[in-house]
């Protein structure tokens, strides 16, 4: 994280429970301005719960969240409004802000222009993910949280979307918190990463370092990492 400046997002000792079950158990995490951070971990580790808590959808049982900017989330499974058009989906993303112009999103994803009047539910998964990212961007976030970017998508589409995210990060300095099953992808495009297991942060550090850690290689990279 860049020294000196206060991080965009700080999570301290976060505890979240669903009834009697503890989903997050003392999680610490930070994302600096213009930083790309990965959050990887097995199914049920609490990744979505962490994003939802930061997004204000889930109330924490204990801990502290400091968010010094706007956050938008691309939810797991995309969750577009299927019976609405692509354009209406995008416009709803701007609910929190004044500016509802969809132009900038179309500039980023020109392919969406021709789909603008189509019902979101009729699009392919890749197209839906574009709309989901676009919809989140309509909220003019300082931090974009993406939950499972690659879920159910063809590798080629994932690469394109990943490039778009990197591009956004470089050009407009948007910070990105990327939750990924595909740890290889996440470590490739993010400079830092957290590994979460059973509601606790098991490991954290620069992507380079985690990539070379035998534990991460065994659990998430399917053996030795080939660059």
């Amino acid at each position: 994280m860049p020294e000196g400046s206060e991080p965009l997002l700080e999570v301290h000792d976060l505890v979240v429970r669903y009834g009697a079950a503890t989903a997050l158990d003392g999680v610490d995490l930070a994302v600096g301005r213009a930083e790309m951070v990965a959050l990887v971990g097995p199914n049920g580790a609490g990744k979505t719960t962490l994003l939802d808590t930061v997004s204000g959808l889930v109330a924490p049982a204990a801990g502290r969240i400091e968010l010094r900017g706007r956050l938008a989330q691309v939810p797991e499974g995309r969750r577009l409004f299927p019976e609405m058009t692509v354009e209406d989906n995008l416009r709803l993303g701007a609910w929190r802000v004044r500016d509802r112009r969809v132009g900038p999103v179309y500039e980023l994803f020109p392919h969406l222009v021709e789909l603008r009047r189509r019902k979101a539910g009729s699009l392919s998964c890749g197209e839906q993910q574009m709309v989901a990212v676009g919809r989140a961007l309509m909220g003019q976030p300082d931090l974009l949280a993406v939950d499972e970017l690659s879920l159910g998508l063809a590798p080629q589409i994932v690469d394109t979307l990943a490039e778009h995210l990197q591009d956004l990060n470089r050009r407009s300095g948007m910070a990105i918190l990327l939750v990924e099953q595909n740890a290889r992808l996440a470590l490739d495009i993010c400079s830092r990463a957290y590994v979460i297991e059973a509601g606790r942060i098991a490991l954290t550090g620069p992507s380079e370092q985690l990539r070379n850690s035998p534990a991460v290689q065994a659990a998430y990279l399917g053996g030795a990492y080939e660059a």
Partner: protein
Amino acid sequence: MTLFLQYLAAGIASGSTFALVATGFVVIYRVTGVINFAQGVFAVLGGFLAYSLLQAGVAHGLAESLAVLITAAIGLVVGLVALGRRGTPPLASLIVTLGLAIFSYAVVITTWGDHPISYEGLSGLLAIGGVSMQRQYVLIVGAAVVTFLALALLFGRTYLGMALTACSSDQRAARLMGIDVWRMGLLAFAVGGGLGGLAGVLLTPLQPVQFDSDVGIAVNGFAAAIFGGLVRPVTAFAGGLVLGVAEAMVAGYYRSSYETAIALAVMLALMLWQASRRAPSEE
């Protein structure tokens, strides 16, 4: 033939009021997931409020409009009580609306007594194509159509309407956009209250209402709403008309006491049909 057309006209008129009640059910259910058992109460209160305002010398038109506005406000209060704190499950809210419906009996009886009331609607007949029908019928159908178009415009064309639809489409996604689902629910209850009130205001000149008329009104409205699986306003509207006409025919050619039985039978048949269609896809 003319008799048939007269039954048809009466059926379309009462069907339009069912359609209004049904649309109220649908708006509330879509946005909040709550089946509002107090939906018939709004109609009863609309009738009683218009009655009192007219008694107090308020002019026709104004009295009815005020009654609708007040029922919309009552809808908001019902929403506040039923939705409770954020995150209250819909089933809990449903039970609360049932409680409120019963509570309304006490309110109506202590305020207005337990006898039925009515007032003059539009008087006179209007001849359309050889069929003379009550002007009140024409007013009812006209008001229902205008209301329906206004709702279609609200939900289909406005940003607020889009947000309301978003709540019904995917609550989680709506919340992620920053849409306050709880507040949208209150708004839906207010709209539902107004729709119920409008139905009552229009219906009371045709059929006197009393404190417990809400059950009959709600059963008809719910039966109509079920046509559209509780979520599609257009089908609910059509459902109201079909039900109204069917009941008018039964009442006209057979016996009026079978009206509600018809509504219940239709509702039951539709619920069974929908359940059988849905069953295999679930789980």
